[in-house]
């Protein structure tokens, strides 16, 4: 078995005060090898985004361990070493870009924080890589479309040259027509840079398009892990997974029917 780059073990997350504590994530564990794409799928509220935020260090209130290269990460503020290797793409590009910051500033700030050289050149390069003309650098978010914004968000994550991208439903806030563009961008960038992805989504089509291995989540647990071939061939073991797959297949078919 390959050495895993990112490993999550016995992850438990609860929210709320003592009397009404909700146990949102229960004993979640998985590992992702270098260059692999791992997908977490499940219905809304099953805790998949919470897992992602705990890994990212945005929620330090968890139990369990998160290992990067077999090194356990501290719960509180993650060090610069972690952040340079792990970056995140957020769900809603309308909320994750500061409304008063130019694209240029959004992309320059991480470079300044981590003391990168050739800042101007790096910004141009990353804009081209995500499919935006370098002239977009002097635009404000409200001058961009949803898809363009999400490209900027991807550029912001890529500019630190990370090894792992945490993708939190990167297409669900976008128009259907734009979703495919962003997914293709993500798969292309992954090939070009040899990135490792952890993708969270409720959309089986998105997950199966990008990921090799998939974890099915229900009520805060990973109930089943499978390969994307197994998903395509309908070889799920658990009853819930089969229902979920059937439901999304039926939904996809209904959409196709609408389209024709």
């Amino acid at each position, binding site marked *: 078995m390959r050495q895993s780059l990112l490993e999550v073990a016995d992850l438990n997350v609860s929210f709320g005060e003592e009397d009404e504590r909700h146990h949102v994530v229960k004993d979640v564990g998985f590992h992702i090898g270098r260059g692999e794409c791992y997908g977490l799928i499940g219905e809304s509220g099953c805790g998949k985004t919470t897992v992602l935020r705990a890994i990212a260090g*945005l929620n330090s209130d968890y139990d369990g361990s998160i290992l990067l290269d077999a090194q356990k990460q501290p719960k509180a503020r993650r060090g610069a070493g972690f*952040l340079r290797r792990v970056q*995140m793409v957020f*769900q809603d590009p309308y909320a994750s870009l500061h409304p008063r910051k*130019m694209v240029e500033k959004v992309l320059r700030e991480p470079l300044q924080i981590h003391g990168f050289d050739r800042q101007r050149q790096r910004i141009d390069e990353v804009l081209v890589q995500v499919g935006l003309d370098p002239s977009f650098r*002097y635009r404000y978010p409200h001058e961009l479309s949803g898809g363009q914004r999400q490209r900027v968000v991807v550029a912001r994550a890529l500019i*630190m040259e990370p090894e792992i991208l945490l993708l939190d439903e990167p297409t669900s806030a976008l128009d259907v027509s734009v979703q495919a563009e962003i997914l293709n961008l993500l798969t292309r960038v992954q090939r070009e840079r040899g990135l490792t992805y952890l993708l969270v989504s409720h959309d089986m089509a998105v997950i199966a398009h990008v990921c090799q291995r998939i974890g099915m989540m229900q009520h805060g647990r990973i109930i089943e892990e499978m390969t994307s071939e197994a998903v395509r061939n309908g070889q799920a073991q658990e009853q819930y997974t089969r229902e979920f797959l059937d439901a999304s297949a039926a939904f996809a078919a209904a959409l196709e029917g609408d389209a024709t």
Partner: protein
Amino acid sequence: MDDMYQHGVRGWLAAPVPASAAQARAQQIWLGCKRFAANRSALAGLVFLLLLVIVAWLAPLIAPYNPFQQSLAARLMPPSAAHWFGTDELGRDILSRIIYGTRITLYIAVLTAGIVAPVGLIVGTIAGYFGGWIDLVLMRIVDVFLAFPSLILALAFVTALGPGIENAVIALSLAAWPPIARLARAETLTIRKSDYVAAMRMQGASHLRIIWSDVIPMCLPSVVVRVTLNMAIVILTAAGLGFLGLGAQPPSPEWGAMLSTGREFMMNAWWVAAMPGIAILLTSLAVNLAGDGLRDVLDPRHD
């Protein structure tokens, strides 16, 4: 016609693809100015305020008389060609005094705003961003200040510090910063949970950097609008302090103090009180109108 828009400053401001950060910023400001100018009453308020600034600046050139020049022979003269706004009980020209009084009013208003905005912004954003006991302590201090009516608080401070313009400014600032801090804190509470702040944290930004570069730019518009609208209250409170004899001291031509002395002659010489009263009224009206217009331009929720 089309050519005209392609060249020169206008073309530069209307260019669809800005070529530099400065140009992009200038375009945003230009759009804001256009929206502000579209609001006629706000524009009128702003023009009046600019006029006041010019009057204050050029007071010695504009004022027809020396504001301190007494002439007992010309006491309580009604408005006439020689004295447009009449004269007061010591024969001083009221127009000249109001013109010089502009300086005092603007001095108080601008200085108070200059103290209140940064203090309120810093206290509010720090309390809102860090939360926990820092928030608790800062907000209880704000509560203490808010518990007193602002004029009473200002009165208490002026009595303790002694009357005078500088002390009036300090007293007014002490009374005016807590609502600004509250406002900034409320804005910060929503901002700190946003994805763009999470993104900054993912990039390893320090708390100071997040407050400075993400939180404050988002709080600034509402704080600026609030401070501007507050300026009308500050001008009125300053006049109130002057009226009670606790602000600027005679013979300085402060509008509130002038109004106060005019009160004695209300029955047979209305202009002594009415002229400074109108000046106060128009100024606070202009500030309110301009502040409203500014809100339409700056506050993203009013788009």
